[in-house]
């Protein structure tokens, strides 16, 4: 198989991983005020774990280093409690446990993830431009 855009396999995996990270961040932001999950507890912030892996080429060639999402773990930080006696989820003292999601932290994470995504897109664009420039070698 012709490898036209070299290095793009690992970049595609990175784009996949960053997209998963952005999905998880959007889930965190969406549930920043969810005090009642399916298990009756407040929403627990989720974190994406990346790991590097070797991807075997389809034609049995050399394995290329790439990355994948190892898993989505729950953030174990304690919930913040606020006084809201009107909330149905409030305990006997009128305290409600809020999700351990910090909007500012999520926004910073989102910037980081979207910048990483952008960097990988730049790699794809560069690989494509290089291939097109090489094809223009013989042009008069």
């Amino acid at each position, binding site marked *: 198989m*012709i490898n*036209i855009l070299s290095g793009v396999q690992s970049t*595609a995996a990175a784009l996949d991983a960053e997209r998963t990270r952005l999905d998880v961040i959007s889930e965190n932001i969406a549930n920043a005020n969810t005090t009642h999950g399916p298990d009756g507890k407040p929403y627990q912030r989720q974190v994406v774990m990346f790991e590097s892996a070797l991807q075997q080429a389809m034609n049995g060639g050399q394995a290329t280093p790439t990355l994948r999402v190892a898993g989505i773990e729950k953030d174990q930080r304690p919930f913040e409690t606020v006084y809201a006696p009107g909330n149905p989820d409030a305990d006997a003292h009128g305290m409600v446990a809020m999700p351990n999601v910090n909007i500012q932290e999520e926004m910073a994470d989102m910037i980081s993830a979207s910048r990483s995504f952008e960097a990988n897109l730049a790699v794809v664009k560069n690989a494509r431009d290089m291939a097109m420039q090489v*094809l223009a070698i013989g042009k008069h």
Partner: protein
Amino acid sequence: MIPLTAIQPLMSAHGISPGEKITPSLPVMPADQPGALAPAQPSGDSFSTMLGRMVGEVNGKQINASETVNNLQAGGDVPLHQAVIAMEEANVSFQLMVEVRNKLLDAYQEIMKMQV
């Protein structure tokens, strides 16, 4: 992969190194003739076989790209970037094929212009 490795020994034969500025000139043309490429083939494949395989691979990439896009539009589990990368790969390999065809035609016309 195959056409590029076949050209490498020719590049060094013409004294082309990555650092140098390559000027397209007529003496490079004979390198694209079938006879000039044949000795570089380790398996002894003919040039037409090689070309046919290349066209087949380009076709495969085109099919793969259209399948990925179809899958994406049908709501399949295909990320957007994968479809775009597949399309780009198909586009670049098609350009490579067109470039090889142009070179072959140039070489043919060069020979036809020869005085007998």
